[in-house]
């Protein structure tokens, strides 16, 4: 890893000031992706601004019908939160499926979504749940936030402060994980709220997380795994293929994971 100048602000205001002033600065959340990337010299920022010392960025609250999750909340905290388990057990389970226990003690929701790895778990879950990403400048719907492979709507230096997740949905996330990396080879998140169903697919799309509209239409008519029989899975043309799984295999897995998620979400 190349050396850098290190900053550890204790307030969001200080962090914002640093990001406005410093050149070639990178935000460090839990570091579970950024540090390995820097070790490989795929990233070599001159300045690193560590968000770990800012208490206002951590914690989980229930506010009305929403869960409000601070950007620096770790995966282990989301997975173990009594509030999340009560309101959206599928989201707690999603967080508990990321990486391994030690990685979950460092990795954060804000870091995960800012990186928007196409095989990460949170993007699919937050897209299906219709979450809102709050930054130091604005609020963005998840559907506007995730814009492609490793890319988001965030501006240079913009800091995610929290994620607002509406509760009240029947929600589940089913993941076929790569046993070595623990990333999703395919992950499907299903949320049903009132008559509306959202199905989001991660790990497969060649342009990152996406909604599977054909499945949504079928599930809106009948919320059951059987409703997906006869619905063609997304075309392999738009999916990733690599040494772990071909695009055709991923296409098939999307159907399998979607059925599992629907079954879990409907409590059967």
């Amino acid at each position: 890893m190349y050396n850098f100048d290190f900053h550890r602000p204790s307030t969001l205001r200080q962090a914002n000031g640093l990001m406005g002033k410093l050149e070639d600065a990178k935000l460090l959340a839990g570091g579970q992706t950024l540090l390995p990337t820097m070790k490989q010299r795929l990233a070599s920022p001159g300045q690193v601004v560590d968000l770990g010392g800012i208490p206002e960025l951590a914690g989980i609250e229930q506010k009305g019908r929403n869960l409000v999750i601070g950007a620096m909340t770790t995966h282990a905290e989301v997975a173990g939160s009594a509030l999340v388990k009560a309101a959206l057990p599928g989201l707690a389970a999603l967080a508990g499926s990321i990486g391994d226990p030690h990685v979950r003690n460092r990795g954060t929701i804000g870091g995960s979504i800012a990186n928007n790895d196409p095989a990460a778990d949170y993007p699919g879950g937050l897209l299906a749940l219709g979450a809102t990403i709050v930054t130091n400048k604005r609020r963005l719907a998840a559907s506007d936030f995730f814009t492609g492979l490793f890319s988001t709507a965030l501006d240079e230096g913009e800091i995610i402060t929290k994620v607002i997740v509406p509760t009240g949905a029947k929600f589940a996330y089913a993941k076929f994980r790569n046993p070595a990396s623990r990333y999703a080879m395919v992950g499907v998140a299903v949320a049903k709220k009132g008559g509306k169903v959202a199905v989001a697919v991660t790990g497969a799309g060649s342009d990152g997380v996406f909604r599977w509209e054909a499945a949504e239409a079928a599930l809106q008519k009948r919320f059951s795994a059987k409703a997906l029989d006869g619905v063609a899975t997304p075309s392999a043309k738009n999916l990733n293929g690599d040494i772990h799984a071909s695009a055709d295999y991923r296409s098939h897995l999307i159907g399998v994971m979607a059925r599992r998620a629907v079954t879990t979400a409907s409590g059967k």
Partner: protein
Amino acid sequence: MPKVSMTVNGKRVSGNVDARTLLVDFLRNEQRLTGTHVGCDTSQCGACVVHVDGKAIKSCTTLALSCEGANVTTIEGLANGQDLHPMQAAFRAHHGLQCGFCTPGMIMAAIDMVNRLGFNLSEETIRENLDGNICRCTGYHNIVKAIQAGAAAMGGLKVAAE
């Protein structure tokens, strides 16, 4: 070089380090606590697991400077003089190691497991929670037995060694 201060195994320590210094390198090279190992250096193997503020983390994927003011426990901080920690004793009694390289991380992960999940751990729970720790010798069988017994011993229960 920036200065970092933390508490390691109950002792206040500080040092001037390159910003890029990983926690594991600070512990091994500056503090001479070489019980914490670097296996893969890519967050896979868990040989570097230590506790930071009571939680197991991979010290090869954490900057030393991010641990300013933190309370760090390494494998060297477990025994009480000549008396092994119950989890260490269980690894010895159950032959939970062969070459021993992964063992410090295994034991730190095992104690974290007990802290999170209690003293009565099923084999399935232990195997699932060893996701972040790789052993290339044992096939895990005796590690799982050791953790089950060590957890019970931490809770004051007795499990017969086989």
